[in-house]
C-alpha cells in the first residue's frame, strides 16, 4: 500500500457541554467583560470579591451585587522571578491578594511591576484591562494589576 492510501481521521478530544456560571459568578465575569468589578454583599454586610453564591464565612445566601474597584490594596504578594509556562505574565511579576476598593475580601491576580522593590504589602494597585474587543468574561480580561501611578 502506497503512502497516499493511508487513511487519516481527525480525533479531537472535547467536552461537548456548557455550564452556566450562574447569577453571581456569571455577573462577576460579565462585569469583567465590561471592564468593571462587582462583589456580593455577605450576610454580615461584608462585600465579597470575587463573589461566591454563598457567604464563605457564614454560608448564608449573598445579597445584592455592588460595584467595587478598579483600584485596591495589596494584602500579600509573592515575587515570581521565573514565570512558569502557563502563568499570566511571562516576564517577572508578582502574585498578589488584592482587596479592591469597597471590598472586604481579597482576590488573587498578577501584578505587573518592574521589580520586587516596587511592591510592598499595602501598595495601591489598579486593574489593567485588556482592550474591549479581547475581553471574553474571564479572569484574563484583567491582563494584570499595576502599581497606581507606577511606571508600568
Amino acid at each position, binding site marked *: 500500500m502506497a503512502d497516499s492510501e493511508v487513511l487519516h481521521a481527525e480525533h479531537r478530544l472535547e467536552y461537548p457541554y456548557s455550564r452556566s456560571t450562574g447569577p453571581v459568578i456569571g455577573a462577576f465575569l460579565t462585569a469583567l467583560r465590561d471592564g468593571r468589578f462587582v462583589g456580593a454583599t455577605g450576610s454580615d454586610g461584608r462585600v465579597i470579591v470575587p463573589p461566591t453564591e454563598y457567604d464563605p464565612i457564614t454560608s448564608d445566601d449573598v445579597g445584592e451585587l455592588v460595584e467595587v474597584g478598579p483600584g485596591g490594596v495589596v494584602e500579600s504578594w509573592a*515575587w515570581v522571578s521565573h514565570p512558569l509556562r502557563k*502563568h499570566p505574565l511571562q516576564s517577572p511579576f508578582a*502574585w498578589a491578594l488584592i482587596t479592591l476598593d469597597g471590598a472586604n475580601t481579597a482576590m*488573587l491576580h498578577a501584578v505587573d511591576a518592574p521589580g520586587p522593590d516596587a511592591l510592598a504589602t499595602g501598595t495601591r494597585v489598579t486593574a489593567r484591562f485588556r482592550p474591549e474587543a479581547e475581553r471574553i468574561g474571564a479572569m484574563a480580561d484583567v491582563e494584570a494589576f499595576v502599581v497606581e501611578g507606577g511606571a508600568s
Partner: protein
Amino acid sequence: MSAAARAVRPVSIASFAQSQNVRKDDERNEVEGLMPVIAEVFGNIGITKDDVDFICSGSTDYLIGGPFSFVMALDAVGVWPPRSESHVEMDGAWALYEAWVLLQEGEIDAALVYSFGRSSLGDLSEILTLQLDPYYEAPMWPDIVSLSALQARALIDSGKATEADFAAVASRSRRDALSNPKSQVANDIAPEVLLQDDYVVAPLRRHTLPPITDGAAAVVLAAGDKATAWSDRPVWITGFDHRIETHSLGARDLTTSPSTAKAAEVAGVAAGKVDVAEIHAPFAHQELILAEALGLDDSVAINPSGGALAANPLMSAGLIRIGEAAERIRSGAADRAVAHATSGPCLQQNLVCVLEGGA
C-alpha cells in the same frame, strides 16, 4: 461537642508501613510499589488480607493521569473473593478517617488503609493548580509554591515569624530526618547557611519547600479483641476530627488555621500532655501556623521523623504522620501524640488525630 462528650469505640493503629521515599520511582508501577508495603503492614502483626473486613485507600488520578487508578491499585492487596472497599480522592489520612468511622459502627473489627502516589510522573506546579477554584483561580495557573509564598509573606507581615524562623524549621526537620531511614532529604545544615539559598518564589527560599516524592504507606486499624491480640501495646485513637475552610483564598486569614484549631478542639488535643506531634506541613512556615493552631508549646517534640520537608509523597504524607506518631507510642518513646494531615492550598483542610498508648 467535646471529645469526652462523644461515645468513641476504641480503635488501634495496629500496624504501619511505608515505602522508601524517593524522588523518582520509575521502575515500578503503583501496584508494584504498593505490594511490599501491604506485605509489610500485614507481616508486622502476622495477619493476612483475610483478617481485615474493610479496605479504604487514598490517592488521586491526577498524578497518574488516568481514571479510576485506585481500582487498579487494589491488585496490590488482591480482592478475591470480593472485599468491602472504598476510596477517597484525598490523602490516606482521610481514608483512615473513613475506616475509623465504619469501625465506630461496630460491625467490623479491622480495616486496611493505604495510599500511594508518584509525584514524579507530572508537573506538580500544574497538577495542583487543578484543585483550585475553577473560575477565579485555576484559569491563571497559580502554582502551589506561589500560593504558599503569599501565605508566608502574610505571616512575615503579621510579625509572627521571620525567614530565619522558616529556616530553623527546615534545618531541624532535615537534621531529625537523618535518623529516619525512609526519608528522602536528610542533612545537617545550619539555618544561617540555608538563608543563603536563592528565592524560588520570594519570600520562599529553596529550603522552605518540600521535596517531590514518590511513595506509599499503609496502616491496619483494629478494634475489640483484635486490637489487643495484634499488639502488646495498642495505640488507641482517642480523638479524631477534620475541618475545612472556604476555597476562596482571599477570604481567609492565611496566617492562622481555624480549621486546625477547631479539629484540635473537637479531638481533645488539650485534654492531656502532648509528647510528640507529627504535623503535615509541606512548607516550612506552615509548621509554625499549625503548631499555634494545635496549641503546642515548646515541650512538644515536633516532627521527629523529619516531616513533609524530609519526604512529601503526595496522598501519603498525611497518613505517614499518623503512622509515625503511632510508632513513637508503640516504641515507648511517647505516651500521647498528635498527628495532623492537610489538604488543599495554604492549609485549606486539616485533620487532627490524638493517639494514646494503652496497656
